[in-house]
């Protein structure tokens, strides 16, 4: 892998705490004196958070689709009716 990808991997190991102690120490020492690396670490952390948000959005979209099918497709009529009945307010 090219150098920049190796650096990405090193940051990942640091953030996900997958480093052996010696390497972790070395990375942290480098981090203290390298402001460019500091910025990359912050951005990479944000990238993982964005991936998690994206994952949740995708999952919600899958669930919405299933919900729509269950409450509109006649195959699931009895299930849908059973649920809807619970919310009829007299």
């Amino acid at each position, binding site marked *: *892998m090219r150098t*920049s*990808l190796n650096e*990405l*991997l090193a940051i*990942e190991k640091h953030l996900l705490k997958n480093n052996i102690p010696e390497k972790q120490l070395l990375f942290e020492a480098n981090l203290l004196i390298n402001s460019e690396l500091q*910025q*990359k670490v912050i*951005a*990479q952390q*944000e*990238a*993982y*958070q*964005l*991936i*998690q*948000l*994206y*994952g*949740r*959005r*995708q*999952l*919600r979209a*899958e*669930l*919405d689709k*299933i*919900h729509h099918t*269950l409450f509109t497709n006649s195959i699931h009529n009895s*299930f849908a009716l*059973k*649920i*809807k009945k*619970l*919310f009829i307010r007299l």
Partner: protein
Amino acid sequence: MEQQESLITTQQRETFFITLYKRVFPSVAKYISRKGGTFDDAKDVFQDSVIIYYEKVINASNNCKNEQAYLMGIAKHLWLKKFSNKQEQHLDKEQLHNFFVNETKKPLTRKLLYYLETAGERCMRLLMAFYYDHTSLQDVARLFGYSSEHSAAVQKYKCLEKVRDTVKEKSLHYEDFLE
């Protein structure tokens, strides 16, 4: 549930979620109804519970013994946490999703997510498979059509680099007028 192997594809997840819907949604809906909530409240609480449950089982090496009890527990907790004062205030849909820390509240995060969803969908799908669904390298290579695990791993890091650089670039671009 035989976790990991059985939830790799969208179709497998669909079957799993339909089963959960049929098995657990009636109990959640009954609970929410009794507490004065609406059909949409029940849907939102249930779906949030399923997402939390999914993240738990996909991360865990051991399976959850009683998914119905677990899901009901989350649903009750979410309802009590978010809607205990419902009588005094109109239901705010935004509130329901607040339990997700960092859930697209910041304008910059929203913009970044929108950008990444539209400009780099394949990369985001690949990264989601690795980091969110915890799919194995072998399965990702197969699902995304890479010739080897090594190719899939290299592509993963290229995608992560792209997202990271977008974060850096857009953060600088937006920070002047957003936050």
